[in-house]
């Protein structure tokens, strides 16, 4: 018997609960997995978070989630051509992982098969106020478990495609990178038609490994995208994460990184392009828990129309994590009067010998710069485009890979042509 007063559910919460009952028989998993799903559903039934919940203060999920679309079993989006040269492609189409081959030194399993055997059930445990985790745990239908063996240098990037054609798509990528291994992942989130998408990455970076992870989210403007990237970075290892958001109606991308290993290094670079009435929230929680761990975070945003942007960056330094060095910066360029960007940096430091800092700026296009370019004959729109590109160039060019830089710059240019 439930002793708590059951809150009155919103239409979208009710829809989620109802979808679950019709959907459950199709979802993979043995008893242990189903138990996790039920638990996650109970969390959803207690209501989605509102602005009263600290981590969701700037993104009132309950109000913003909007209509929850039904599943569309028939939809089958085609895999996209890979973004970079000879990437190894792994596609999840409408929540179904397609058959994949194993590149040298890499083992790949479909999650559906693992869930059926009851493996990875413990990954479906959502945290407190973890709505992304709960929605995904309840509905996740497939994805990939990828394991890179110790010491393997994976030649070509592994491209993870999570595609939908409207409706709902919930998937996961569970990744283990062995000691001393080196690998690049490029994750693409895309689709057409109104959709609710949740996607979770869980990455374990082994000792001395070097992992580069790029997330390119370019959903259509009627899609709710709930993403979460969780990683544990081992001793002497390196993880660089690049997140580009250039689409979606409501986007929440969470980044949770723990650095228990000594001298681990983490980098976050993010570019967020927001237009019209969209809402984009990048929330990072970073735990420096090992001795001598270092990190840098640089987030650059362009907001226009009536868009609302959010960056929450929390850096926690444990008592044992002496010699931590962490630097975080968030710079936003606001192109319209009605657009807004909210930044909440937080440092929680329990060690006494650390170097931590953060900075945030919100600015408009510099009129003196604009005048200079126009005085050379560059028409206003083009001049603004050059300045917007300049604002982001530094971050994008850090990626170095020419094909990747070009692909991202093309997206920036297209975005600016349409919204600038």
């Amino acid at each position: 018997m439930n002793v708590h007063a059951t809150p009155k559910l919103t239409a979208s919460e009710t829809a989620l609960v109802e979808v679950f009952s019709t959907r459950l028989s199709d979802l993979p998993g043995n008893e242990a997995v189903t138990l996790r799903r039920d638990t996650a559903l109970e969390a959803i039934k207690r209501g989605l978070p509102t602005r009263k919940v600290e981590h969701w203060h700037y993104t009132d999920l309950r109000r913003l989630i909007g209509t929850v679309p039904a599943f569309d079993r028939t939809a089958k989006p085609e895999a996209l051509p890979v973004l970079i040269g000879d990437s190894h492609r792994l596609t999840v189409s409408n929540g179904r992982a397609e058959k994949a081959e194993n590149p040298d030194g890499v083992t790949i399993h479909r999650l559906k098969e693992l869930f059926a055997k009851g493996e990875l059930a413990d990954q479906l445990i959502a945290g407190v106020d973890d709505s992304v985790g709960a929605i995904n745990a309840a509905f996740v239908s497939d994805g990939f478990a990828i394991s890179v063996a110790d010491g393997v240098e994976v030649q070509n990037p592994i491209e993870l495609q999570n595609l939908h054609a409207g409706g709902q798509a919930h998937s996961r990528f569970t990744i283990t990178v062995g000691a001393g291994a080196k690998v690049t992942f490029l994750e693409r989130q895309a689709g057409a038609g109104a959709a609710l998408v949740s996607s979770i990455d869980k990455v374990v970076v082994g000792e001395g490994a070097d992992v580069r992870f790029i997330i390119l989210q370019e959903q259509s403007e009627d899609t709710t995208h709930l993403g979460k990237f969780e990683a544990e970075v081992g001793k002497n290892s390196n993880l660089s994460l690049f997140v580009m958001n250039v689409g979606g109606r409501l986007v929440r991308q969470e980044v949770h990184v723990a650095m228990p290993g000594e001298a681990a290094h983490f980098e976050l670079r993010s570019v967020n392009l927001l237009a019209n009435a969209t809402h984009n929230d990048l929330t990072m929680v970073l735990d420096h828990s090992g001795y001598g761990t270092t990190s840098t975070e640089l987030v650059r945003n362009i907001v226009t129309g009536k868009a609302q942007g959010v960056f929450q960056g929390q850096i926690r330094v444990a008592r044992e994590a002496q010699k931590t060095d962490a630097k975080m910066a968030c710079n936003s360029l606001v192109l319209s009067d009605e657009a807004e960007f909210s930044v909440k940096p937080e440092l929680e430091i329990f060690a006494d010998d650390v170097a931590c800092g953060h900075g945030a700026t919100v600015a408009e296009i510099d009129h003196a710069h604009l005048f200079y370019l126009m005085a050379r004959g560059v028409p206003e729109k083009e001049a603004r485009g050059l300045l917007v590109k300049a604002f982001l160039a530094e971050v994008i060019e850090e990626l170095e890979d020419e094909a990747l830089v070009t692909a991202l710059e093309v997206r920036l240019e297209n975005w600016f042509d349409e919204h600038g």
Partner: protein
Amino acid sequence: MLEIKNLHARIADDGTEIIRGLDLTVKAGEVAAIMGPNGSGKSTLSYILAGREDYEVTEGDILYNGESILELDPAERAARGIFLAFQYPMEIPGVATMEFLKVAMNSLRKARGEDPLKIPEFMKLVKNAAGSLEMNPDMLKRPLNVGFSGGEKKRAEILQMKLLEPKLCVLDETDSGLDIDALKIVADGVNALRSPDRAFVVITHYQRLLEHIVPDTVHVLSQGRVVKSGDKSLALELETHGYAGLIGEAA
């Protein structure tokens, strides 16, 4: 080529009047020097000619080849051949100098109905122009004006002027921050561009620059008006007597 008639202008933000009834005529082929003490409105005049929004024209007109340019934005003025060499060129991080030059040159070509330059052709033009100004080619690989010394920035301005081939060149204190060698190179660059169909408005505080760029006419600006005009000997007179003597005389 340029006719400024009873021009009155103020700072848009706070309404401070800077230009107060300025008249000036510059013919094609002419080099007109504008001299005057600090605060006389010299730089403001250059910005107004280029179309900077921070200033508001309240009275009078600026005619360029017989047509008012007051309603044109800076890019449209540039497309018609007006060029301002800035006193303080902007540093623009993230915009590569070469990319900027290409976009600017092709914007002007487009406005004139010409095809964009092919890359090899563009590279050759830039290389030749940079060479004649004794510019280090590495500078062109940097973001626009970022980390350039004062002298390098001025050279970069003249480089742009050479490449964009304007008809009316406004030089705002191009001599400031230049040592004598750089001054000579910059002046040679300007002199090489002198031609019967091109006019120059050379704004300067000191006579020094005018030894290298010899003007046809000299105009003294004070409190937003031209208070005295003459030939190049007026500049020498100013050097001897100072602005105070001369402006006192004119008033």
